[in-house]
């Protein structure tokens, strides 16, 4: 494809890695290769910060997707490091075989490829295909353990995801149909760059219809209520590194798609504002997710629901719109990716040392495993929006910008936040404190990914580099 060269870094590397990992037998080597390749991808993505390649027919880079790519590559890298430590133990405990792991690594990279492709895609059709690819590769990883629950979760994810993707495709087709009279036939009518320029002239009604399908379709991947069904089980039953990337990355990619189409809608005066829809689904997800936290038994499912909650918050923020809220949404998105993946790293180790994911059987972590325990406490407090972590800042901005737009909307928002906080704290209270119970097995892991993420979140809460701020602000302005 023309002008694809600059993108080789973020696309070629994972693809190559996938191929390479498919043939490496030793899982130790594979794990290292995996990490190295992810690091390369990260560097490649960082290069975009300095040199923005010109948009080609299929691929392009603008301020918006750089954010996502960088976050994506970074969390992908840290996860690959974490996964190296994680799978070793899985092998020891005999939950997976080396053959599975070969498969696992391959799929990990192809998923990274899919997500990066979706992010750099300049073409709504290509975007769709890429998201589909990412979904399929995660599906098989969710089913990795071959337990009944794992298979069931994978299956549920697969079916719901497919239907969602189908809806998204119909929406995509409609967008093309809307564009075609203006831009004529052919590839041009599916290019973001072109669409954005001419969207004003499109038939608004078709756009509205299209957005409904797109919101539901990609919203399924985002995990918005009521199309969230697959999310909790997929997080709970898959290997923890996958839970981390699911929450930290895949949801973002889907959200990215929604955002793009929202921008498209915003560009057309005649189209209904997508804001109310997103606000509605966002609030629903927030409240629902928050309420669902209370009755959880499984610690990974718990945090899966918290992801639903936070995706709701982010969607809500973008629904509110305006430079401030968009800024807050982006910030919250980044913070959530970092924090939630950090939490899953911690949870992964916890599940391994305690030999269970049942919240009821995990007690007094700060007593039995201080580093891990306090790491988890920090993570949970951060995700619950406690200062001085970054999420406090983004939530502050979201609430205040909401007040500025429409004060009454802030009330359900606040209620949701409080409900979610109460539930998380309730579980944290028992997991992290009290008399230790359950297995006492000790392992010395590298907690670097966990605390690295937390450190970043803390830093962001205290000080955002002005360059970053201006950059985010420019994006926020674009988002409208």
């Amino acid at each position, binding site marked *: 494809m023309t002008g694809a060269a600059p993108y080789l870094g973020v696309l070629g590397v994972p693809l190559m890695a996938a191929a390479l990992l498919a043939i490496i037998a030793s899982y130790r080597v594979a794990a290292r290769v995996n990490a190295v390749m992810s690091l390369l991808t990260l560097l490649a993505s960082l290069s975009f910060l300095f040199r923005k390649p010109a948009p080609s027919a299929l691929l392009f880079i603008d301020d918006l997707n750089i954010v996502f790519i960088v976050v994506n590559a970074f969390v992908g890298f840290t996860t690959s490091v974490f996964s190296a430590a994680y799978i070793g133990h899985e092998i020891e405990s005999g939950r997976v075989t080396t053959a599975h792991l070969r498969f696992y690594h391959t799929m990990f990279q192809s998923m990274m490829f899919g997500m990066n492709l979706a992010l750099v895609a300049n073409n709504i059709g290509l975007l769709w295909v890429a998201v589909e690819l990412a979904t399929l590769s995660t599906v098989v990883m969710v089913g990795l353990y071959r337990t009944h629950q794992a298979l069931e979760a994978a299956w549920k994810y697969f079916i719901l995801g497919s239907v969602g993707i189908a809806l998204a495709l*119909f929406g995509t087709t409609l967008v093309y*149909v809307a564009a075609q009279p203006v831009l004529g036939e052919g590839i041009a009518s599916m290019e973001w760059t072109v669409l954005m320029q001419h969207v004003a002239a499109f038939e608004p009604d078709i756009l509205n219809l299209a957005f409904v399908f797109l919101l539901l379709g990609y919203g399924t991947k985002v995990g918005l209520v009521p199309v969230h069904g697959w999310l909790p089980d997929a997080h709970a039953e898959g290997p923890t590194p996958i839970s981390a990337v699911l929450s930290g990355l895949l949801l973002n990619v889907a959200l990215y798609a929604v955002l793009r189409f929202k921008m498209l809608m915003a560009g057309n005066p005649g189209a209904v504002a997508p804001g109310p829809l997103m606000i509605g689904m966002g609030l629903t997800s927030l409240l629902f997710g928050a309420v669902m936290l209370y009755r959880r038994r499984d610690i990974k499912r718990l945090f899966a629901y918290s992801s639903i909650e936070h995706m709701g918050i982010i969607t809500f923020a973008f629904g509110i719109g305006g430079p401030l809220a968009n800024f807050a949404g982006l910030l919250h998105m980044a913070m959530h990716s970092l924090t939630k993946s950090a939490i899953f790293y911690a949870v992964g180790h916890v599940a391994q040392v305690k030999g269970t994911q049942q919240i009821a059987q995990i007690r007094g972590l700060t007593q039995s495993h201080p580093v891990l325990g306090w790491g988890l406490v920090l993570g949970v407090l951060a995700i619950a929006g406690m200062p001085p972590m970054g999420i406090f800042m983004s939530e502050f901005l979201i609430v205040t910008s909401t007040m500025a737009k429409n004060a009454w909307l802030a009330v359900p928002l606040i209620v949701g936040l409080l409900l979610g906080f109460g539930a998380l704290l309730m579980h944290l209270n028992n997991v992290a404190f009290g008399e230790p119970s359950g297995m006492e097995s000790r392992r010395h892991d590298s907690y670097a990914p966990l605390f690295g993420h937390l450190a970043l979140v803390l830093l962001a809460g205290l000080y955002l580099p002005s360059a970053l701020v201006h950059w985010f602000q420019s994006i926020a302005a674009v988002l409208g």
Partner: protein
Amino acid sequence: MAALGYDVAHLLAGGMVLVSFMLLYQDRMGALLNVFALHATVLALSVAWQAYVQDAPHLYVTAFIALGLKAILIPSALRRIVQRLDIHREVETTVGIGMTMLVGVALVALSIVLMLKVTVGVDPLGRQDLAFALAVLLLGLLMMVTRRNAVSQVVGFMSLENGLILAASGARGMPLVVEISIAFSVLIAFIVIGLFLFRIRERFDSVDVTTLHAFRGDRT
């Protein structure tokens, strides 16, 4: 010529909606699969026709895939699964067939109203194509929702996806249709393999009904 082209396209697309209704109506597994084969064939025809009227040769590929894969390969595979896993023969429904049909009619009405109102600027060919496509899509979804039986749900999904292909092919000059239809075929292949691999006997709900809630972490 244009008029003829329009009429045939209309006929075929409408035919698909009709076949979707037939799908809804079936209560025997075997018959269901046959009707689906028909559904796929009609799709293939209409795609081919679109290829002809838009003289977009790449669409023939799509048509061919539709015919070969969905009209022949998959139905036969499903038949084998049905025999292999001795899934008992009749289709269990959650809502009565009649009720389903009524809802279906409502859905078709909805989609046509919506489409015709929305797609004013589009050329008539695309318009009714889209309208019918949406109808087929919704009917497929309806089928997935109302059928308990795994195989018939797969069929529902495939008919839904036929609707998508119909829409894509109807959108004049839409690129990537082939790629997309291929991607979808992969998807469906996955599903069918899944059915086969994971021994999904009765329903999507669970890989294995007996273990559905027993070990689930979150049973309160």
